[in-house]
């Protein structure tokens, strides 16, 4: 609780600082949404030449794209700056965070909070909205509810990957790119249907680092498509549970990282 409170305090301060330059902020927000939207434009152009990708239509892929983008966008907004901890470990500036009465993770996550990252979320929601309208699905209450639940659970799974990646940086000082390959790289993968990837990769992101539960498993269920690994039907609703499970090793790794922190010479 103290962590959430401290997080809120620091975030509030950065938002106030951002809002001092309102025009600049809105330009950044639009820029962020536009850049994030460009890769969907790429998919759109591809579909001018093909009718289906891995057996999936454009609205179906748009649904995968939109949900994954929102999940990553949320995690990136709330915890996006944890990948800078490597620099803090190297130059010892983590020291100053350790002597404050707020858990370090909250301080690291809130540091330089960038509200402009809302741009990616807005863009992802827009694509999801279009996909929901365009896709040929019988929208039962359960299916409608599954989408927002999966988005939030997906954000938590990405968040766990970010925290674990940050913990790894206590050991390997400049491993920020390893972390990014799982978050941003994972997001790019999840924007496409699992049918176009090898079985080994799909298995890896289902059972080892369970990114498949961000959107593949729940969205395939919504679309009425078979799940490639033949998971039981309830797995479609398991994303929140998976998120809770992966947050445990992530937070343990974080605590081990803090304990092993060695600071710098002076």
């Amino acid at each position, binding site marked *: 609780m103290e962590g959430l409170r401290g997080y809120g305090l620091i975030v509030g301060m950065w938002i106030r600082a951002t809002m001092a330059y309102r025009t600049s902020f809105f330009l950044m927000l639009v820029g962020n949404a536009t850049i994030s939207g460009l890769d969907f434009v790429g998919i759109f152009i591809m579909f001018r030449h093909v009718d289906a990708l891995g057996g999936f239509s454009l609205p179906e892929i748009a649904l995968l794209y939109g949900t994954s983008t929102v999940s990553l966008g949320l995690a990136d907004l709330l915890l996006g700056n944890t990948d800078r901890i490597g620099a803090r470990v190297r130059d010892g500036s983590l020291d100053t965070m350790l002597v404050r*009465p707020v858990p370090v993770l909250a301080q690291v996550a809130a540091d330089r909070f960038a509200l402009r990252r809302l741009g990616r979320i807005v863009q992802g929601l827009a694509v999801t909205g279009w996909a929901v309208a365009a896709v040929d699905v019988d929208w039962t209450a359960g299916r409608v509810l599954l989408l927002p639940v999966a988005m939030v659970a997906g954000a938590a799974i990405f968040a766990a990957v970010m925290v674990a990646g940050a913990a790894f940086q206590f050991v390997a000082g400049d491993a920020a790119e390893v972390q990014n390959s799982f978050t941003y790289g994972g997001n790019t993968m999840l924007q496409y249907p699992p049918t176009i990837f090898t079985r080994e990769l799909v298995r890896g992101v289902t059972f080892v680092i369970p990114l498949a539960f961000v959107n593949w498993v729940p969205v395939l269920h919504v679309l009425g498509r078979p799940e490639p690994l033949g998971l039981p039907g309830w797995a479609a609703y398991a994303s929140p549970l998976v998120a809770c499970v992966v947050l445990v090793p992530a937070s343990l790794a974080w605590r081990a990282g803090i304990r092993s922190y060695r600071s710098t010479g002076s």
Partner: protein
Amino acid sequence: MGMDVDDVDDVRGVDDVGDVSDVGVVDDVGADEMGRGGGGDVLIELDGVRKVFDVRRRTGLLRREKRQVKAVDGISFTVARGEVVGYIGPNGAGKSTTIKMLTGILTPSGGRLRVAGIDPARERTRLAHRIGVVFGQRTTLWWDLPLKDSYGLMRRMYRIPDDRYRRNLGRCVEQLDLGDLLDVPVRQLSLGQRMRGDIAAALLHDPEVLYLDEPTIGLDVVSKAKVRGFLRELNAELGTTVLLTTHDLQDIEQLCERVMVIDHGRLMYDGPLGGLHTVGEGERTLVVDLETEHPPIDLPGTRTVKVEGPRQWLAFPAAESAAPLVAAVAERYPLLDLSVREPDIEDVIARMYAGRG
């Protein structure tokens, strides 16, 4: 969160040394009161504290050599409430490592360590409310924000009541001359201004102990004097315990009744500064500029260390006044200019070792 609860349990489980204040800790308020009462007037307590770093060195393409470095090698001392203690030693002696263990930044490899009855590494965030820390080499302030925004955030982070916050900030602003700086972003402050800003930030929540790691490093004479004067008053008026590391012997002379010397991770000396001079038989140096070149000056009680053209260096015992010596030189030689150099800490310590043989 869950972490805090675990930590309290740990302390109760591990601490079998019999510190009554730690038994039955239920909440922060209770612990606070018992800590203050139970610990008597001992605020900081170290018993055989060690910190060992594993250093890995690449010796071949894939081979690595692992070596253990004892940064702190079994240090024991206590600091009473209200003391001002100087913690000195050569570079790499283990000063900063000790401070970092006392603040909870580093976890000790062994030994027992308590600050205000709290084990720093286990209950870091609880301890944070009761200590203030100033790192000379880096700032705790938010780089891009005006000073007063940083303070406002501190107020809410530490849950400082409004009246106390206003009183403490007012006091710091007045005594550290911060009035004109409150609206300036930290990155635009000079080193001396930033240091004063950092000291104020460390004191807003009324800490019982203030740690300063090289607080005067890189400051000009005026800024140094301001910082020292402020720390003296802080200790006199509020009774705040101060532990500082420094390379500047004048910091120690003007602030500390007690000095601890550490080298190679071990405590070499613990006592009044005067005692350190005696142990080390310290010398001060009088540098004189004469009108013309002269043979080495010969005065009783001094020895000429160096002659360089018209400039000569005379060493004399640190305990003696420079005034009679200056008068004697001026009387016999055509004196243009002079200055007195205090022995620096490295010199004092080097002689201390030599003296012990």
